[in-house]
């Protein structure tokens, strides 16, 4: 259904003679709205948006962990942080031990996830879009890391991406993402 709608939008812009960037923006907006709507009903979809310090309506989680997803279908993640701050000193104090201990860090993954963390047992096809603009996504811990992409790590025996499509789109503009970002000021 949504494929047909995308084609319809494309055709409309072609007929109307709009430029390429306007067309790309329209398609992007359409995809964002679709993920936003679907995230209300399905755990395969995640939408999160924080704008001017306010979490927008319909937001679910900052990132998607497919270990909590049922079924095998494609998963979609859309996260936008605009003119906002995510993470604080108080919330990260408990993670100091983890940051200092590389083994603990390896076992528990990144300190913050905005992107997609995939299950090792069943890897889904993934569409991940993360946009960070004029923002800070941080922990007070030096070296603490943030996943904004697609991460399939810590798999014991191995992992198979056979027949999967993984699309990752990350844009970071005038922002600081990661540990001790605030200390770099």
């Amino acid at each position, binding site marked *: 259904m949504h494929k047909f709608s995308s084609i319809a939008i494309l055709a409309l812009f072609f007929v109307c003679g709009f430029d390429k960037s306007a067309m790309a923006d329209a398609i992007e907006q359409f995809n964002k709205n679709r993920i936003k709507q679907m995230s209300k009903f399905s755990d395969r979809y995640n939408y999160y948006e924080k704008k001017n310090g306010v979490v927008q309506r319909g937001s679910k989680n900052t990132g998607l962990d497919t270990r909590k997803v049922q079924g095998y279908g494609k998963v979609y993640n859309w996260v936008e942080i605009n003119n906002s701050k995510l993470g604080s000193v108080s919330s990260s104090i408990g993670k100091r031990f983890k940051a200092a201990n590389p083994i603990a860090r390896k076992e528990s993954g990144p300190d913050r996830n905005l992107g997609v963390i995939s299950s090792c047992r069943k890897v889904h096809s993934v569409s991940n879009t993360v946009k960070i603009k004029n923002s800070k996504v941080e922990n007070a811990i030096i070296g603490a890391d*943030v996943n904004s992409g697609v991460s399939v790590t810590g*798999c014991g025996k191995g992992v198979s991406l056979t027949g999967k499509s993984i699309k990752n789109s990350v844009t*970071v503009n005038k922002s600081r993402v990661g540990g001790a970002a605030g200390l770099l000021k």
Partner: protein
Amino acid sequence: MKRLFIAVVFTAGMMVSGQVYAIGDGVAKAAIQEAGSVARAAINKNKSEVNVENSTLKNDVEMKNAISIGNTGISAKADKVNIKNSTIDNKVKLKNAVNVGNAGVELGK
């Protein structure tokens, strides 16, 4: 006659010892090969593997006036990587940006 007998016995002895030596060499070689394969299997037993087959990995990362610590790309870590019939499209643009970690496509350690 006596000399001829000694010569025949000596020659026969040399041939037999040569064959015995050759057989011993072969057995040692096989034993070493077997031990090697067992050791290899033992080493590989705990190694993880990532298989990418008939897959499409498309990575598009753009950073401008930004600092990022961590993973912004596609990361699948393992000791061994098998890639077959797959497309990997990696586009990373950094402008006045610092990235510590992976921003591209990372398969394997």
